[in-house]
């Protein structure tokens, strides 16, 4: 399952980042690290980007990026 599949108000654990190099590093720097719990908070009016709560901060990611993050939904 990808982060882009997570619905608003749902929670998940990050399993893997499917990109290396600078783009992967950027995601890690923003706190998208395997093992971290993430929650989808809200969508922007056009549906993209989506805001997530992660490590105590709300950050917005675009679909190009959320398609690169593998997750496991938490009930």
């Amino acid at each position, binding site marked *: 399952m990808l982060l882009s599949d997570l619905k608003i108000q749902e929670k998940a654990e990050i399993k893997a980042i499917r990109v290396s190099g600078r783009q992967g590093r950027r995601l890690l720097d923003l706190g998208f690290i395997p093992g971290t719990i993430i929650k989808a908070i809200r969508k922007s009016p056009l549906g993209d980007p989506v805001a997530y709560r992660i*490590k105590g901060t709300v950050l917005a990611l675009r679909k190009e990026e959320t398609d690169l993050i593998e997750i496991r939904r938490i009930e």
Partner: protein
Amino acid sequence: MALYADSLALNLLRKNFNISNDDNKPIIALAGNPNTGKSTIFNGLTGLRQHTGNWPGKTVGRAEGYFKYKEEEFLIIDLPGTYSLLANSTEELIARDFICFARPDLTLVVADATNLERNLNLVLQVLELSTNTILVLNLLDEARRKGIKIDVKKLEACLQVPVIPAVAREGLGLEEIKKTCYQISKEKIKIKGFKITYSREIEEKIEELIPLLKRKLPFLQKRINWRWLALRLLEGDKTILASINTYYPIYQERVNIFQKGEVQLDGFNQVWLK
């Protein structure tokens, strides 16, 4: 104390960042994640002795100002708020280049005490680049309210830098920041600064790269942290070579030789070792 010729060269280089410091005041960079209270601390330290503008050639705003402790006057520059120092955005590039090339005498990193884990990423990156670092643990009132307790002594021991608790909105911690800056500038405190040790494979590559870099870029001797530069090249970061070109333009040709294939985008290139 730097040699006279060195400090002239450094002042010239700092002019690229619109820093005029002909009277050689200690320069302090203020770094931190967004919303950690950096501006509040900056205002608290400098009062009205500040002015704002943009970073040269960028639309990113910046503030600089002065504060005094005893007889010593410090010039402090507020860097853009960032989560990282790895040049993923204009803001990160500015912060990275300032610490790397303008070489502040000291970097204050402001961290949000309610969210230490996230903030420590930047702290470790700054420490990796520059040892003379102070950690300001701000928003401690919020942390207390949330029931978060931080063992400051232990954090100091782990990071091997001074850690100063602060509630900037109430002015708490500012005197301690000034005093610590003063003590460091007078070399009454020596900062060791924790450095990450990587896997053996990476450490071996660093060891291999450093002598090569020193040979190929001799003009950076004493002007760059070689270990840090080696790490950036291993990561495949090309922005650092572009920045070396920007700040050491007379050496452009040599750096271009690097860019044409000796160090490649994907990181370390074995061919280069031969």
